[in-house]
């Protein structure tokens, strides 16, 4: 077996994200293509009919790119005239057999220490079902933002962490269309040349792909063979990589500036407007919260949503910090999600300060605060101390089942489940975890 040599793996990513827009990039068809009937969401422009011309570029896509740049500390290409290029190749899902893509809109960003080379916009292709030989153009023309990193990730796990954090940021910004995941091309190289694994849809697939490609390249090196650049795809079921020669590796895309669309500049007024409205940076804020004493999981939960961060940042200096943190983590997020509330909850700020302080001063029990929060969100403004709250219920059940409590204290785990069951019976809409927590706390006393 030959020398494995010093292989230092380098990984670079090309991440394709679906920004949230109403319409497609160059036509006014809906960008919400998921779940539509075949070839229903189309027009002459996005199906490449002879003579059809693109409309002007969708403004929201540029605004989204600017927002993303702000959070990735990128530089917006401001003064230069940005062109739209045609990238030519033949494929059934590409109605014009060229793809329109912009020159870089953003350059020199950074995320988790990895440099972002550039971000540009491009139109998506349709859906070619190669097994059945059919094409659906509903998705053709939907906008994509492509983000290219430098090959500065050095292992599979590091890459996964990077992507998880990136997804965390995108979810916080509510950046992507619901229902459309991102698509990622992974470039892996051990030696001089790289393997490009295309079109990976999940973090799990990326993990496997990196592993397989690393193995493949190491094997070639061990055998003394030369590593040649390859374009590969992952066969998830067979757990292997395969190359296909239909999409040529050494493709000449014959890039041509599109004469149908004027080149554009990104106006500083547009940039200012977006930056002014930009929410707080979740990763920076998360670090701040941790430094101030919150646990990672608490900070992580709070920083997962724009509206939580906005409110927390306003109220946390005016009430007990740790109590507020835990309350937000355990209850506020859940209650908002349950009611599908993603917009600002600033109207709750004063209310939250009040109930958090009351909790801290032990004037009310935690579950009472939760009930009041629920009432507030459901439009009921009463802040009565309710008699049938959970704490009281649990107290009562404990008083009636002293034997079970004793059994539990003596090591019988089943007794705990028995007690939980009893409590849940009478408080059906309470979460088991909450019940258990309060129960255990009371038993310990």
């Amino acid at each position, binding site marked *: 077996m030959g020398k494995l040599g010093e292989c230092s793996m380098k990984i670079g990513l090309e991440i394709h994200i679906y920004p949230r827009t109403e319409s497609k990039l160059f036509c006014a068809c*809906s960008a919400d293509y998921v779940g539509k*009937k075949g070839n229903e969401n189309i027009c002459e422009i996005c199906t490449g009919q002879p003579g059809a011309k693109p409309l002007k570029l969708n403004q929201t896509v540029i605004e989204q790119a600017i927002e993303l740049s702000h959070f990735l500390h990128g530089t917006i290409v401001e003064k230069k005239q940005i062109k739209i290029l045609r990238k030519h190749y033949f494929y059934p899902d590409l109605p014009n057999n060229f793809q329109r893509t912009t020159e870089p809109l953003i350059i020199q960003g950074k995320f988790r220490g990895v440099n972002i080379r550039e971000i540009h916009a491009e139109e998506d292709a349709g859906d*070619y079902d190669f097994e059945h030989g*059919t094409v659906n153009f509903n998705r053709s023309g939907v906008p994509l933002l492509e983000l290219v990193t430098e090959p500065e990730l050095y292992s599979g796990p590091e890459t996964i962490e990077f992507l998880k954090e990136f997804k965390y940021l995108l979810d916080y910004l509510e950046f992507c269309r619901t229902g459309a995941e991102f698509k990622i091309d992974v470039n892996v190289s051990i030696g001089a040349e790289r393997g490009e694994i295309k079109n990976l849809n999940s973090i799990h697939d990326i993990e496997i792909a990196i592993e397989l490609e690393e193995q493949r390249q190491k094997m070639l090196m061990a055998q003394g063979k030369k590593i040649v650049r390859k374009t590969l795809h992952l066969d998830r079921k067979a757990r292997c990589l395969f190359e296909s020669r*239909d999409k040529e590796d050494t493709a000449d895309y014959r890039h041509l500036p599109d004469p149908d669309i004027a080149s554009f500049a990104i106006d500083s007024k547009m940039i200012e407007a977006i930056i002014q409205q930009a929410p707080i940076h979740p990763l920076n804020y998360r670090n701040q919260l941790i430094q101030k004493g919150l646990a990672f999981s608490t900070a992580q939960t709070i920083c997962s949503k724009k509206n939580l961060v906005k409110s927390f940042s306003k109220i946390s200096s005016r009430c007990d910090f740790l109590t507020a943190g835990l309350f937000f983590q355990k209850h506020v997020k859940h209650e908002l999600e349950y009611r599908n509330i993603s917009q600002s909850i600033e109207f709750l700020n004063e209310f939250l300060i009040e109930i958090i302080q009351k909790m801290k001063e032990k004037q009310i029990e935690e579950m009472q605060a939760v009930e009041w929060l629920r009432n507030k969100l459901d439009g009921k403004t009463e802040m009565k101390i309710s008699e049938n709250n959970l704490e009281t219920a649990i107290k009562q059940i404990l008083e009636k089942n002293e034997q079970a409590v004793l059994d539990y204290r003596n090591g019988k785990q089943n007794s705990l489940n028995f007690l939980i069951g009893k409590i849940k019976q009478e408080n059906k809409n309470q979460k088991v975890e909450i019940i258990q927590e309060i129960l255990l706390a009371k038993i310990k006393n």
Partner: protein
Amino acid sequence: MKKEELEKLAHLARLELTEKEFQEFEKELAEILKFLEPLNTIDIQEERFQTNEKQENEFRKDCIHIHLNSKNIVKMFPEQKNSLAVVPKTFYKNSSWEQNSNSRRV
């Protein structure tokens, strides 16, 4: 123009040429390219010519316009099934992909 070069171009442009066409084009294309030679006297500069000035509003407001001609478009597909355009299949994922000349396990 050499034949290999022409073959490469024909493949890139997805044109299938007959032997006769190859011969004719070899000659004609070389002549036409000679015709373009006066352009060599020009130094490429970033001077951007404009056949029409840059417009004020460079972007389009993001809103939907429903088109009523999707059915007409589908009707024009040379072959269709359930409103999907029918095109040749590509074999990747069946058990015999190892035999398929278009894909190879690596």
